[in-house]
């Protein structure tokens, strides 16, 4: 079966929610919309307190090239702009809108027939509609779909691996809105110029695979690739290798291997943006975990709170000890769920009981080489970690810590419970500083 070297097999946990169809939540009374829901510069608010806004109206402008704009997810009045909890940043600036009624949509052009539109127009729509990578990394899509002239895209790969345990929103989205997703894929292929489209699905999603294969039966340019269920199969470089057998050059980007990878949700959002004139204001979220009373998949508006979604999922059990935004391998543990907004990148809300939250002592490395065996980037995590511990950052740089994708596989397997990923993060930080200094020196020389 198609796969990559390394990786781990955490317990899947998908059975909790994979058969729960996506339920559209009723509109919340209030939404908290963060200005930073993407990689890059936060957007600048373009509304002020007291402004009345329609659903889908732009409320934040992209600041600069490497940014994205944001839109209101309800019809209502702006009641506050300030610092609010943020699932990734801790706290961040956000626009709070109080809903005053049902949706009154801000009108955007709809293009059911987009074949006649030029690449630039389509790209403009993607940017205007605030679309970012919905797998969790939230990279601005209009930048990814527009590589430099000399880098040709050969494959547009849909990342339908959903390798994180518990998450099932992409699975359900494919099963329930497969046609829309494929339209989105075609639009993205047109924009990027990629002649071939591949949908990479992990083999633990048999229904999605069957459905996608059926939908692509008559599509010459699009195929379905079934990949082995393994974490982190959904990591860009690993998915590209599994599907095309190409290795993204170290230090390079997927486009250097002729590939562009986009999440299932992102493809669907592109479809909705171009064909229905709808900006990115809602997304599928899996609310699950052993401490969640009624795990479910919801279609939630951006800005709806974690607290609300958890309530709609029957609430959390009394012995809940951890709430995670995203998946358990790379997600972020939250301090509170009150006033914590769902963002464009919130793929999951997981609740873990106290029995699953362990505080384990870090022991000395016993050189078991488990971390070396599982690293999908072929690094030696334990050597990197000990070099970081002893502050040997030049050595850490030589050992390619920058190539670490922070998937967490090494920390997952370590029997000595060493927080290897944390050492890698520290190492990456320090090496980036070293590299920045080196670049500065180069520029001074010029």
């Amino acid at each position: 079966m198609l796969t990559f070297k390394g990786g781990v097999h955490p317990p899947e946990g998908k059975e909790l929610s994979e058969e729960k169809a996506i339920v559209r939540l009723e509109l919340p009374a209030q939404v908290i919309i963060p200005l930073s829901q993407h990689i890059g510069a936060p957007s600048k608010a373009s509304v002020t307190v007291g402004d009345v806004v329609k659903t889908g109206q732009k409320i934040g402008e992209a600041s600069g090239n490497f940014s994205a704009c944001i839109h209101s997810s309800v019809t209502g009045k702006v009641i506050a702009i300030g610092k609010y909890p943020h699932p990734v940043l801790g706290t961040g600036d956000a626009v709070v809108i109080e809903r005053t009624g049902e949706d009154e949509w801000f009108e955007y052009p709809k293009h059911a027939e987009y074949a006649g539109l030029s690449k630039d127009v389509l790209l403009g729509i993607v940017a205007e509609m605030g679309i970012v990578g919905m797998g969790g990394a939230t990279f601005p899509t209009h930048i990814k779909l527009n590589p430099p002239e000399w880098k040709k895209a050969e494959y547009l790969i849909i990342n339908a691996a959903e390798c994180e345990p518990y998450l099932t929103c992409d699975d359900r989205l494919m099963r329930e809105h497969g046609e829309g997703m494929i339209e989105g894929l075609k639009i993205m292929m047109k924009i990027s110029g990629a002649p071939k489209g591949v949908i990479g699905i992990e083999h633990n999603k048999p229904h999605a695979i069957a459905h996608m294969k059926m939908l692509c039966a008559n599509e010459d340019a699009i195929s379905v690739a079934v990949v082995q269920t393994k974490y982190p199969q959904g990591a860009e470089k690993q998915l590209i290798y599994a599907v095309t057998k190409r290795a993204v050059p170290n230090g390079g980007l997927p486009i250097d291997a002729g590939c562009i990878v986009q999440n299932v949700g992102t493809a669907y959002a592109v479809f909705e943006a171009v064909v229905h004139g709808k900006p990115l204001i809602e997304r599928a979220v899996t609310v699950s975990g052993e401490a969640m009373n009624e795990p479910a998949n919801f279609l939630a508006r951006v800005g709806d709170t974690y607290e609300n979604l958890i309530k709609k999922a029957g609430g959390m059990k009394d012995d809940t000890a951890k709430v995670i935004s995203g998946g358990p391998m790379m997600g972020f543990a939250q301090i509170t769920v009150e006033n914590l907004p769902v963002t464009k990148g919130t793929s999951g809300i997981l609740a873990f009981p106290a029995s699953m939250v362990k505080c384990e002592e870090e022991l000395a490395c016993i050189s078991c080489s488990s971390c070396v065996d599982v690293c999908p980037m072929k690094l030696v995590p334990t050597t990197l970690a000990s070099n970081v511990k002893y502050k040997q950052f030049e050595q850490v740089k030589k050992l390619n810590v920058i190539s670490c994708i922070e998937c967490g596989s090494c920390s997952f397997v370590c029997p000595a419970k060493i927080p290897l990923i944390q050492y890698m993060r520290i190492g990456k930080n320090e090496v980036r500083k070293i590299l920045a200094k080196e670049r500065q020196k180069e520029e001074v020389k010029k």
Partner: protein
Amino acid sequence: MNKLVVSVSPHIRKDISVSKIMWIVTAALLPAYAYTIYTFGVRTVWVTLAAIFGAVVAEAGMQYLMKRKITVSDGSAILTALLMVYNVPQGIALWKVALGSFFAIAVAKQLFGGLGYNIFNPALIGRAFLMASYPASMTSGWAPPHGNGALSLAKEAAQACLQPNAPIEAQKLVDAVSSATPLGALKAARVAADNPEIRETAHNIWDALMSPDMIKEAFMGNIGGCFGETTALFLLIGGLVLIFLKIVDWRVPAGYIGTVALLAWAFGGHDGLFSGMPLFHVVTGGLMLGAFFMATDMVTSPLTRKGKWIFAVFLGVLTFGIRTWGGYPEGVSYSILIMNMFVPLIDRYTIPKVFGTIKEAKA
């Protein structure tokens, strides 16, 4: 709502721990251990208790003196003690075993910093200490179990080939065979083969030692030797279980045993190249124990795949070399100790190329 725990990702971990690994390896040694009690009797238990006593006192004592957390419960000291038992002959005095075990833990492990920091395999250091301090005790006292097992076969075969007016050395050689371990007997035969007068007897003994019957007996454990030199079959079973459970990487035992077998075939016979009997070398001596339980000790073996192969092959070369051309009949413990020294170097030079290194991208 209760306070939530905030920590860095990943938020789930594999259900494995250092302690679990140690206890699983200990459990894998039990089939061999049970057979050892069957063959050598209750003395095995006393020797084990003495070894455990020495190891635990060393660990707890050293950690207490060095003001560190006492970690005896992680099972690593007890594992070392059990491996010490396998490295001593049955007749050894209990206090010597305890002392060797104490030395292994206190010096080879705790003085280096405790679990994870030792360079040398502690059980083998313990054995080396006893070999140097009490060579006589360590090279005798093999009580061949249940009659004298297969060595009597060798002796009978050799006796049969002995001519009536053969020189006295020949008779001495034949007598020596039944009181030695198979490897000891082979060494004696090999040395004796240099003497043209008794060469034929020596070669007969050589052949008898390498006969299929002999090998079967050795595999089943009916020969003299240290506790761990005898039960090749059960050690193999335990070792395969560990490989199946992914506690032990198959590369080290495969490379080690494979190299020894290859060299034994090439250089182990007395009729020139490629006339040797590889199985003899594989089932005798501490090779099974060494390949599956000692060379695979995680702390003292390489991290990388390439490194493990290099380690294993050199181990094979050293072991066969010492057994055949060196002064000792058995080479496993010293080969492993020597290669332990090279592990940091091997690790340094076998760091794999990062995924996406340009050569790979072109392939």
